[in-house]
């Protein structure tokens, strides 16, 4: 599903990623762990091109995500990304956050998009919070909405960049539960995390 071949990334003279060769198969859940500064976040961000690479190729479902010919936005709508800092859009409520991609990228009709968004929110246990704004939600709830948002466009692949590192301990559990469910349903996942318990 995700294939890294000879990937290199440099920040000036500093080589952040050196000769990465790896693969994540369909339905596999791969955890990336390691000490701070080892480049794990950088690696996962290269997959959907939030970071550029100097050499090598990365393919998702057979498509080279760093090719200059393709429409990066179409590619990204096919990859779900969950950030450490959630990065929900504070001026939109939970439903609108999840529906935005459907409305603007998939060009769905408003009614259809809202239905689908509502269904996704229910799936992560927040169906009753559809009208709430991010500022009114706890960290754990926000991250679950972020997961729903990433799932909205039915991506075959989900990427998680330290999804629980910014959460208070009590809330880590609810997010991990959602992630476990996704894995059980056969989602291909790549996850950077400190949570060794989840890794096991």
């Amino acid at each position, binding site marked *: 599903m995700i294939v890294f071949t000879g990937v290199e990334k440099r920040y000036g003279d500093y080589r952040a990623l050196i000769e990465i060769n790896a693969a994540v198969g369909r339905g596999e859940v791969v955890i990336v762990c390691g000490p701070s500064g080892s480049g794990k976040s950088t690696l996962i961000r290269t997959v*959907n091109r*939030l970071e550029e690479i100097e050499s090598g190729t990365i393919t998702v479902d057979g498509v080279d995500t760093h090719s200059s010919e393709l429409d990066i*936005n*179409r*590619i*990204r*709508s*096919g*990859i779900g*990304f969950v*950030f450490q*800092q959630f*990065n*929900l*859009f*504070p*001026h939109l409520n939970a439903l609108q956050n999840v529906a*935005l*991609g459907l409305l*603007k*990228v998939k060009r769905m009709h408003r009614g259809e998009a809202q239905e689908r968004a509502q269904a996704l929110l229910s799936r992560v246990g927040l169906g009753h919070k559809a009208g709430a*704004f*991010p*500022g*009114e*939600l706890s960290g754990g709830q926000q991250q679950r909405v*972020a997961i729903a*948002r*990433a799932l*909205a*466009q039915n991506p075959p692949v989900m990427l998680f960049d330290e999804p629980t590192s910014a959460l208070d301990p009590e809330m880590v559990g609810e997010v991990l539960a959602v992630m476990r469910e996704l894995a059980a349903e056969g989602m291909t996942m790549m996850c950077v995390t400190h949570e060794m318990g989840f890794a096991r």
Partner: protein
Amino acid sequence: MVIRFLPLELMQGESGQVLLKGLLATLELTALAWLLAFAVGIVLAVIRTSGLKGTDTVVGAYVAYHRNVPLLVQILFWYFGIATLLPMVVQKWLNVHGGGFFAGAIAVGLCMAAYVGEDLRSGIRAVSKGQLEAARAIGLTFVQSMRFVVVPQALRNVIPALVNETLLLFKNTSLLMAIGVGELTYASRQIETQTFRTFEIFAITTVCYLVISIFIMLGGRALERHYKVAGR
């Protein structure tokens, strides 16, 4: 020195008409210039934020010109300078159709666009980078990300500054009297030279300006309250 103060009497008849026309002209000019200032200002801010080659210099030059040259000089340059470069046909048409009005609105609008653009830019900078990343990560283009995610948040950040610019823009329309546009200040001067009731007419004009200014300031505060992002 006796000060007669009978503004009501003054306002009936001709003087009242002239003043009212002036007031309407001021409001129209403010509206037109405001729309231009915001349209151009948003474009300037987004262009500069995009980081494309050369945008910084071009937009920077635009802003530097409009902030360092007095608005009056800009107006004179537009009206007496640039207007004379237009083909004669256009100039004749403009003369008949109140050219000063449009030249003035354009001059004020383009000048304030520089200030609005800079305010928006700092507002955009205040929006965390993660927002743009998250928007791009769900597949929105750069323009879509700016339009639906970044700029709405930036606008909320800078409402006080933008209200200030609106107030400034409104006051700056008075400068257009220098090119003969019949706005409020021009009208009051006209009435004053005809009736010599200086104190009264200036007092009425002052009240007009103050009332509208207070309206703008209160409107700004209401806008701030309305757009306060829930939960913060």
